[in-house]
């Protein structure tokens, strides 16, 4: 790298000052390139995080002038709030249900789509459509489909089951949980599918041929060849999906608005209402730090696992 720098200096005879400047920028080139991105992230991610940590220890109120230091009071208030605890439990429940369903459906689709057949390209394009739609619209679409009396779901179920089905899918427990899970599974199953398909395609075909010669096929080949080879991809897909699904907010906002009551408050939705409809700013920042630390626990655990598998 230094040799090329000296070679480059040779033609620079005239403008000395200009070459000094370009010399400086050349020497610090790699840092100049990362500077804009790093500065932006510092300004709009790290600084807000620090700011919110400060706010969580004071009493930040639009009505009350002055910000008194209140210690851990805000954190205690969040931890004592039954709705907060419920929202964490619900977020966990949704995350587990969503990830399991999306994984199983995604895997089944990937196993089918790894083969070549007529119309595969078109079907592929249809399968990935949900990934490109705003979660708000996905929530809207499912609301339209399920909403009583407008949506056709109850009518179709009545026809299929032969009895009159009258379910309020968006207000009645437990159906509204199924509705929210359906919307999430609809949108994100292709996420799992695409990653798992890439993993399946990368497994060498001769492994299966060799197994076939040994009389090993079907389920045994699946457990002996597919699963171990696909394991890193499975873990990657599950990790990425899990980290996104705990942020669940948009579909809740559109489909149920957290209701009825606080029955569909996820962690994100709870923090949003505390901060932006009740304007308990300090309590919301304290809550978001608790949520952040919980997320961090999951991240460290999963990413450690992921890197471990990748090294192998």
């Amino acid at each position: 790298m230094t040799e090329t720098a000296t070679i480059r200096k040779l033609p620079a005879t005239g403008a000395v000052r200009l070459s000094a400047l370009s010399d400086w920028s050349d020497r610090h080139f790699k840092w100049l390139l990362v500077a804009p991105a790093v500065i932006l992230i510092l300004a709009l991610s790290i600084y807000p995080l620090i700011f919110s940590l400060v706010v969580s220890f004071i009493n930040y109120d639009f009505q009350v002038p002055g910000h008194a230091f209140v210690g851990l009071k805000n954190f205690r208030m969040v931890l004592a709030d039954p709705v907060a605890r419920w929202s964490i439990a619900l977020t966990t429940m949704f995350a587990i249900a969503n990830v399991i369903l999306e994984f199983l459906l995604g895997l089944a689709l990937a196993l089918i789509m790894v083969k070549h057949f007529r119309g595969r390209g078109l079907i592929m394009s249809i399968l990935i459509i949900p990934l490109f739609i705003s979660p708000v619209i996905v929530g809207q679409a499912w609301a339209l489909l399920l909403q009583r009396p407008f949506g056709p779901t109850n009518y179709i179920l009545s026809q299929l089951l032969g009895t009159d089905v009258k379910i309020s899918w968006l207000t009645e427990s437990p159906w509204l949980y199924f509705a929210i899970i359906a919307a999430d599974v609809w949108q994100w199953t292709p996420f799992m599918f695409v990653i798992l398909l890439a993993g399946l395609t990368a497994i060498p075909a001769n492994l299966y041929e060799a197994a076939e010669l040994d009389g090993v096929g079907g389920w045994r080949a699946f457990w002996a060849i597919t699963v171990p080879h696909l394991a890193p991809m499975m873990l990657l897909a599950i990790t990425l999906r899990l980290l996104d699904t705990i942020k669940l907010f948009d579909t809740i906002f559109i489909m149920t608005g957290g209701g009825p009551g606080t029955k569909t408050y996820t962690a994100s939705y709870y923090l949003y209402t505390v901060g932006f409809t009740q304007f308990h700013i300090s309590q919301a920042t304290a809550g978001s730090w608790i949520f952040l630390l919980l997320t961090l626990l999951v991240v460290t655990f999963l990413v450690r696992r992921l890197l471990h598998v990748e090294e192998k």
Partner: protein
Amino acid sequence: MVLAAAPRRRRRHRLEIGRYIFLGIYLLFVLAPLYWMLITSIKPSNDYLAVPPVWFPDKPTLVHYVVALFSYRGLRGLINSLIISLAATVLSAFIGSLMAYSLARFNTGGKHLSFWVLSQRFLPPVAIVLPIFLIYRNAGLHDTHIGLIIAYTVFTLPVSVWMMYAYFRQLPRSMEDAALVDGCTRWQAFWRVAMPLSAPAMVATAVFAFIACWTEFFFALVLTSRDAFTLPTVFRAFIGFQGALYGEASALAVVSLAPSIVLGILVQRHLVRGLTLGAVRG
């Protein structure tokens, strides 16, 4: 062996049929909400509550589109979305490429810097949106285009950086080295040699950033109100369907999802890379 092969073949055949039935049902599951939405957007209001439901209206109408775009400020949202998403996309792809090049060629900051950027991808938006809201209010950036552009640039940066990072790592450096020997500065080697070579990857990266901005809801909900609101936030007007605005909601949804689906399908070759932040090659 020969005797055993026959039932196995039959079993395989049955398995094959099962696969297609499953695929068929799943396709129905994918298409049903989309179809119902599309139909609702062109259905006259008096067909809404018909039993049995109207699967295809006799007299399709575009009136809901007109109402959604002009009476519910859908058009304004559409224009805002376009401006904000395009600006943030260009910034994110450009700034992301700069950083990615530095990481790939000089290993700047070692593993720590690259993973620090990656970790931003997993930060829950709710953890930073409140302080950003307060900062924006004080800085006069609340409900401005520029404010949301900056926010979107930052939140798409991790994906842009990592997608381009994965690309630059596999781009041979011989061309840039030759340019350096010929008397180019490092900047020229990057700008005139590496960047043109990476144009296709950059386009794919930009498209993913665009889709992310176009479909984003949470930041837009909090950081905008009456001026810089984007298309997804317009749907707030239809929540609960007071006055049964099914058609309007559907019409706006169709307008909003059409461009991102078309773009997404155009770059589907790069999809794995986009979803896994470059970790997996498609």
